[in-house]
């Protein structure tokens, strides 16, 4: 229900749908008395209404964050999030949960740092523990050019107010005692950049927390509802056709990651995006050995350890387009050979599970947060291999774009027309995974 009178932010937590009961130590105690059988549902499962102010297509982290900030910051609550599967079941559940903001260019580093700022208070803001842990992120360098690039990037970060230091081999070894610091290996560790404020968060909790928050404002989260067509009249969006029938809205925002090209094709648009499977895998749980995040662009491996002890390992993208949510064996083999060289002690650790997510890679490794040539149709896509870290920031600035029909200042450089004007923001060096 759209509010006509401007309500102070503090009072906007009064939900229009149902009353969200806050989680607290006391509520945990209270529910323990009834064997935890009477907890309130985390969100409602409403039937779709005929008409909304805004429809968000895609119930992943970014879509749910957009809905949450649209309601919380802009007071627009007559919103539906349409999800073809289940909430947070796509790339939100498939990434390696790394959060950092040490990007090279001003535009990108400001956007990602805005997101990092939101991460810091997110658990309190959502009243949901997203387990954000600022355990630091290392980006390794393996040759002279890597180290020069790292120095350039760290200097650029510091000028933008983002913490960062350049470490040598001994300093890396001090942070990660299990790393192979031999200078006789094929790709020796010569040093690293270190962002102490980076870290990891619990990916599922991020989706669930934003979902619960959005729902408490009256946003309808509609699962098992696939959008099959976007309907427009006179060049403007009027709604979407779904597997649950037609749903009307003057504003439709596609936050569909790897499927963005499919959404764009519904209105005859092309995007500068290619969808590729990106893989990750986790090992059996082992005792704590790695208490930070280690990434290497050059040998293409990154690893952290989850709270239950699994080593969370990120592999690369397949070289070709694919919507299969699975990747090639040769990509996994490549990554694990790099992991084994960097951490010889892990050579006999068994991998428990491997999976793939379909990522929307952009030519400049930067996202698209943009209006389109179709009135009322917006895209938030192109996050490629590194969208998780941006979840709160992406939702926050994109909600502004939707509410005002004008991009948020931080989102303005990420418009679709940069591919025609040539104002690309080349973040291949800092994006982590080669596109």
């Amino acid at each position, binding site marked *: 229900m759209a509010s006509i009178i401007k309500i102070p932010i503090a009072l906007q937590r009064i939900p229009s749908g149902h009353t969200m009961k806050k989680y607290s130590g006391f509520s945990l105690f209270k529910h323990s008395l009834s064997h935890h059988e009477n907890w309130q549902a985390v969100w409602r499962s409403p039937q779709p209404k005929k008409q909304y102010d805004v429809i968000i297509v895609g119930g992943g982290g970014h879509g749910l964050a957009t809905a949450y900030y649209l309601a919380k910051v802009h007071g627009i609550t007559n919103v539906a999030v349409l999800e073809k599967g289940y909430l947070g079941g796509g790339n939100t559940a498939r990434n390696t949960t790394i959060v950092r903001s040490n990007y090279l260019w001003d535009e990108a580093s400001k956007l990602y740092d805005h997101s990092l700022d939101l991460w810091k208070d997110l658990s309190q803001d959502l009243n949901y523990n997203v387990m954000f842990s600022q355990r630091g992120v290392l980006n390794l360098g393996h040759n002279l050019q890597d180290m020069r690039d790292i120095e350039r990037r760290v200097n650029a970060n510091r000028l933008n107010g983002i913490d960062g230091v350049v470490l040598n081999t001994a300093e890396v070894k001090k942070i990660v005692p299990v790393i192979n610091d031999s200078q006789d290996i094929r790709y020796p560790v010569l040093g690293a950049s270190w962002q102490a404020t980076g870290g990891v968060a619990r990916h599922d909790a991020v989706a669930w927390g934003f979902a619960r928050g959005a729902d408490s404002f009256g946003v309808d989260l509609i699962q098992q509802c696939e959008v*099959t067509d976007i309907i427009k009249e006179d060049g403007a969006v009027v709604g979407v056709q779904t597997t649950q029938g037609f749903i009307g809205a003057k504003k439709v925002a596609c936050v569909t990651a790897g499927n963005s090209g499919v959404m764009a094709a519904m209105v005859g648009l*092309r995007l500068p995006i290619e*969808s590729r499977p990106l893989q990750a895998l986790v090992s059996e749980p082992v005792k704590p050995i790695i208490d930070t995040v280690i990434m290497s662009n050059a040998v293409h491996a990154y690893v952290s350890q989850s709270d239950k002890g699994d080593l969370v390992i990120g592999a690369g993208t397949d070289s070709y*387009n*694919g919507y299969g949510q*699975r990747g090639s064996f040769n990509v996994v083999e490549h990554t694990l050979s790099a992991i084994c060289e960097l951490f010889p002690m892990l050579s006999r650790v068994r991998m428990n599970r491997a999976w793939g997510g379909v990522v929307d890679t952009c030519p400049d490794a930067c996202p698209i947060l943009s209006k389109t040539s179709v009135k009322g149709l917006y895209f938030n896509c192109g996050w490629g291999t590194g969208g998780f870290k941006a979840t709160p920031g992406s939702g926050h600035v994109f909600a502004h774009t939707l509410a005002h029909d004008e991009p948020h200042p931080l989102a303005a450089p990420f418009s679709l027309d940069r*591919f025609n004007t*040539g104002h690309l923001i080349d973040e291949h060096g800092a994006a982590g995974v080669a596109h």
Partner: protein
Amino acid sequence: MHHIYCPYCEEMREEEEYSYTGEAHIERPKDPASIADEAWGDYLFFRANPRGIHHEMWYHAAGCRRYFNATRDTHSYQIHETYKMGELPAVTAPTKAALVADKAKATPAKTKAKPKTKAKVTPEEQQGDAS
């Protein structure tokens, strides 16, 4: 991992011998200096990126070092055909109208492709083994 038939070598080879080089049949504008920024940007960056039948270029980097085209399903990963540069695909995606009709019936879009004519392989061999 895919096994891909190179139309020049006339043999099935493993995926790692090849490099993927993107969407096929994109023609470079004849006179780049005279066209608008929009058209040039479209040529450089904008892609169809379909979920389904896709015509794409591959480069046989560790073989004959020649470019060729393939028609591949980006969802099932089945390679329907490979063909030489300058040739046209035998297998094409259903039109949007047909797709919309399919979707309206709430049935999964099926490929109405004819059997391939050019690749000389059995269906078992074509199946990308990427699971």
